[in-house]
């Protein structure tokens, strides 16, 4: 990397985003960096980008960046590079947006809004028309418009020193971004001491579990060394060497925000996407692009701060069973009991698609059933003469339910029942629309059931036990 002073224009950067593989929309810069299953889906895209430039930096799943200068020279200009990359990604079956500008922040915006290529030197002008909201700093974005600063152009006109003293470190950072500079001046030369952390595996590790587990320890060592030097890294490079000599290197966005666990998670993603012929012999974590630590602290892992011991146990089980099979339940909204929870893999950020804090008319009143079958179980509900109980279009019942048999099991008498409660869901969407009649049934042994009649079939959704 060339040495640059703190006021120099940042290098040309190409940002590629795959809108389909992104999490929630929002400003790329500084968005919360929690992992998600999207990282694995994004891996094939990264492999395509690597054909154009080996130094791919994954900012977060769905977005990656490469330095534009070298590849542009090779492919005959930035526009041709962008077009070639775009075509290759589309051929791979993904949609994508590409942007080239001075510095990562501007390139990310260019990818999102166009034009594809912001010519060198015109980045501050390109940025000036955006509102301060694109900075993705909620507190500042609320404050600045009230002071009459609504666009990045106006923010860039503030004297940097004044902005820093008025708004603190976030203000300083925002000002630098608005003026088209790198968010933090990079430390031009790496310090003498080696801050990387590495571990050799002898015999080679055949499976990813021990490597991921080691990665957490190594990340802890690397963080300790950085902290001791008062530094933080913008990116972390993960080098994995296989027994046959192949090296898989990948850059991950860090910004001093990742916990050791989150770094380990990125190592897992990197390993999951590839074969490692002959096993893994070396894992090395190298901090890349050092900057002074400004002492920002962030809560990771959702709402509750997970203690280290709990997180370690959870990640160990994830290593045994796989990422998706160890989950946190997140309350979600819905009418059916099975809809009212969303399962989020441990370590991923989860926002329910259906928020729980909305009125969901027609949801079952408390108390809720303790057993909710992931897939409803077939049942037969018959009247005293043995005929199946049915419900007419006007919610009229053919006869009182007298006998219940769940999933071909023993027949038990129904001692109490209530219903039908008709539920018509999502009639506007032919894919998801359903009409049901709901019942609560109590059988002779005192067990209570939540049953639905849908398209003439009886299903047991839940059990009160």
């Amino acid at each position, binding site marked *: 990397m060339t040495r640059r002073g703190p006021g120099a224009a940042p290098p040309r950067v190409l940002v590629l985003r795959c809108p389909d593989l992104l999490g929630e929309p929002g400003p790329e810069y500084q968005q919360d960096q929690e992992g998600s299953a999207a990282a694995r889906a994004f891996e094939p895209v990264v492999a395509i980008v690597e054909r154009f430039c080996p130094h791919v930096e994954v900012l977060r799943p769905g977005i990656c960046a490469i330095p534009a200068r070298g590849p542009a020279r090779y492919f005959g200009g930035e526009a041709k590079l962008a077009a070639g990359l775009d075509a290759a990604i589309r051929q791979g079956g993904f949609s994508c947006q590409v942007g080239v500008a001075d510095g990562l922040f501007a390139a990310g915006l260019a990818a999102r809004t166009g034009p594809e290529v912001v010519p060198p030197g015109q980045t501050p002008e390109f940025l000036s028309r955006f509102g301060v909201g694109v900075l993705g700093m909620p507190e500042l974005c609320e404050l600045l418009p009230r002071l009459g600063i609504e666009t990045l152009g106006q923010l860039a006109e503030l004297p940097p020193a004044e902005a820093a003293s008025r708004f603190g470190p976030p203000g300083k950072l925002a000002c630098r971004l608005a003026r088209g500079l790198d968010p933090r001046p990079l430390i031009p030369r790496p310090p003498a001491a080696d801050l990387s952390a590495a571990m050799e595996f002898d015999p080679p590790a055949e499976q990813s579990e021990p490597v991921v587990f080691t990665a957490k320890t190594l990340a802890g060592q690397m963080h300790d060394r950085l902290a001791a030097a008062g530094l933080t890294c913008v990116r972390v490079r993960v080098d994995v060497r296989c027994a046959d000599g192949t090296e898989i290197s990948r850059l991950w966005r860090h910004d001093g925000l990742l916990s050791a666990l989150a770094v380990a998670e990125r190592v897992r993603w990197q390993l999951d996407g590839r074969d490692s012929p002959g096993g893994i012999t070396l894992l090395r974590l190298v901090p890349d692009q050092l900057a002074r630590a400004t002492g920002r602290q962030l809560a990771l892992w959702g709402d509750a701060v997970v203690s280290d011991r709990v997180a370690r146990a959870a990640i160990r*089980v994830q290593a045994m069973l796989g990422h998706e099979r160890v989950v946190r339940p997140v309350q979600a909204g819905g009418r059916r009991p099975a809809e*009212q929870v969303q399962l989020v893999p441990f370590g991923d950020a989860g926002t329910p698609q259906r928020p729980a804090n909305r009125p969901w008319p027609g949801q079952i009143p408390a108390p809720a059933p303790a057993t909710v079958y992931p897939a409803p179980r077939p049942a037969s509900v018959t009247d005293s003469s043995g005929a199946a109980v049915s419900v007419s279009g006007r919610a009229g019942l053919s006869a009182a339910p007298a006998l219940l048999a769940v999933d071909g099991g023993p027949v038990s008498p129904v001692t109490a029942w209530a219903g039908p409660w008709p539920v018509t869901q999502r009639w506007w969407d032919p894919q998801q629309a359903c009409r049901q009649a709901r019942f609560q049934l*109590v059988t002779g042994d*005192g067990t209570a059931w939540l049953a639905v009649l849908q398209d003439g079939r009886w299903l047991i959704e*839940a059990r009160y036990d």
Partner: protein
Amino acid sequence: MRHRDDVLAGEGLLPVLPALQALLPGGGLHRGSVVTSEDWGLLSLALLAGAVADGAWCAVVGVPMIGMRAAAEAGVDSDRVLLVAEPGPRWPQVVASLLDGFDIVLLRPPDQPSASLRRKLEAAARRYGSVLVVAGDWPGAQSRLLVTDVEWTGIGAGYGRLRARRAHVSASGRGAGERPRSAWLWLPGPDGAITLAADRAVAAGHPAGLEAGRLASSG
């Protein structure tokens, strides 16, 4: 009197819901012990609620059909729960790993564990000072809770709805001087909470109006 010592030690005991205190020796869950409920159900969740409210972390293994809304109503904060619905054939290793880290592991064993396997997991619970709550059979458990009698209120033949369940829960334990205990609980009460119920009141089959009055007075 081992239990008394543990209580005096303070941190040896995880709290439980007030309604369950009388059923458990020492009035809580002893760290390093195994507690069972006969089968998966609200009683299993109830055993976790007091400790989770107190800040304990809890892992639930082998229960794909856990009703999280019922858990929340019983007082189990979902932010402190980790689910491993399908632990697979290596479930004993999964449980042992979770016992080192989580305060409580609720396990519904996918198959009947052998005596030696049970001893290993009991030893793991003791070593890490966590509590293994088993939904199922576990010979050698320190405490066993059993729902012996239930009675739903609020629902009749074609009217009303499920409002609350009175359940008679009996507890037995291992060790000298352990007397069987039992209590009537609202499992769940009208709002999903689990509280003590008065001893057996009126027989089943009364009109809806009386039902509502009884629920209100149960508080």
